[in-house]
């Protein structure tokens, strides 16, 4: 193990390995949720810029500069969270971040290279603010950008670093932790962890997966077969296959099965502006058949990333039920 990794892991050891407490798992999960919130906000920013460029909006240069600023701010927050979750990737992540900071500064100060704009635009870019917006969008998510990466591409890298970072340390160590903490569900093959309550103290009563006060979990399990275990009774002799870390409106679902790499993250609060579903899966998982329409799926050599942000209260319920059927039906 390199000095670098040792340094980082030593530091993180203090948090996660001090005593194997549920609390540390909870805090890291909450940190991961924050990371996703920041990611969502970032995607929203990019979408907002696109919308303003397409529609008949009236805006000024200040809007574009703010947009660029906000993107860098969010990116910084994402990268920071990523470093906490996957410290071994820290150097690389900050290097990437710094490159984008420089690109942003150049855009704002006007030193940016012209880039590949103009040709495919249908709107006449006579006004400088519109030109700036167009350049900014190209930096954010321009297609065929051969020279340097886009913000979007960088984001995806960050995502994968994070997933890789949290996976190995979690699985085996956590199993032991969960088994001793009374968080096994009685009705299904799940560990259910209440992110806030269990962090404070391990639960006294056993809990059920279906009965738990978590909105997304309820929807996910709506049509699921009761008792994923082969025995069919509540008494599952086999180890649980899933970890569900929850709050009233949030769910972080992770597969523990050795042959299924799958992770679902969702916020289902009923507020369309913040709700989301993010899914991470291994290369071999067939997401196209599992996920309903509306999901944006990205494939890379380390795995697959999918998300849906355009979620009204009804849509998110339906999506979750759909996915649940696919996973547990």
């Amino acid at each position: 193990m390199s000095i670098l990794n040792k340094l980082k892991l030593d530091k993180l050891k203090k948090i996660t390995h001090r005593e194997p407490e549920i609390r540390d798992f909870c805090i890291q999960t909450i940190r991961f949720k924050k990371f996703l919130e920041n990611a969502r906000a970032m995607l929203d920013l990019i979408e907002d810029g696109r919308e303003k460029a397409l529609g008949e909006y009236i805006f000024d240069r200040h809007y574009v500069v703010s947009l660029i600023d906000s993107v860098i701010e969010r990116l910084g927050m994402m990268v920071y969270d990523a470093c906490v979750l996957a410290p071994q990737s820290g150097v690389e992540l900050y290097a990437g971040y710094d490159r984008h900071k420089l690109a942003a500064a150049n855009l704002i100060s006007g030193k940016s290279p012209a880039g590949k704009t103009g040709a495919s635009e249908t709107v006449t870019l006579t006004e400088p603010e519109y030109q700036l917006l167009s350049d900014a969008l190209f930096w954010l998510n321009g297609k065929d950008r051969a020279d340097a990466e886009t913000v979007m591409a960088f984001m995806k890298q960050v995502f994968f670093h994070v997933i890789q970072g949290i996976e190995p340390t979690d699985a085996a160590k956590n199993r032991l932790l969960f088994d001793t903490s009374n968080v096994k569900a009685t009705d299904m093959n799940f560990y259910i962890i209440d992110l806030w309550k269990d962090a404070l103290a391990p639960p006294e009563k056993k809990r059920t997966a279906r009965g738990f006060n978590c909105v997304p979990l309820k929807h996910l399990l709506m049509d699921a077969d009761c008792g994923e275990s082969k025995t069919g009774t509540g008494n599952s002799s086999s180890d649980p296959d899933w970890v569900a870390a929850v709050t009233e409106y949030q769910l972080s679902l992770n597969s523990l099965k050795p042959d299924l790499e799958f992770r679902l993250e969702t916020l289902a609060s009923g507020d369309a502006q913040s709700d989301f579903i993010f899914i991470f899966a291994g290369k071999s998982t067939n997401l196209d058949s599992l996920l309903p329409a509306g999901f944006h799926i990205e494939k890379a050599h380390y795995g697959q990333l999918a998300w849906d942000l355009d979620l009204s209260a009804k849509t998110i319920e339906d999506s979750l039920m759909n996915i649940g059927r696919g996973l547990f039906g």
Partner: protein
Amino acid sequence: MSEQPLKIMVIDDENIVGKRLKPALEKTGDMVEAFEDGEKALARFNEEPFDIVVTDIRMDKIDGIEILEKVLAISGRTKVIIITGYATIEIAREALSKGAFEFIAKPFKPSDLRMIIERASKELRS
């Protein structure tokens, strides 16, 4: 429903605003005059008060709050709508407390402004 066309004045030192707002607002049959110079706008307003005044809050020569005060002094019934580029609470408070009808933050679609104007015209008529 009998609806008289509104007389709307738009004031913004950024040329693009008037350029884009004028045709958009005139679609519904209202009369729109756009100004880049606040003083000229006020002079025109003095000749003939408008029903609605849409003004940017931050301009170099004369700022939106001053325009708001002067417009209301001439014609108390005129509804003044403030366009703000920096949607800070402070500005909203000052504008509202000085009698502005509403404020709208850039970026906005002309149709958003249209809705505010409709609300304002309802109050004018009641």
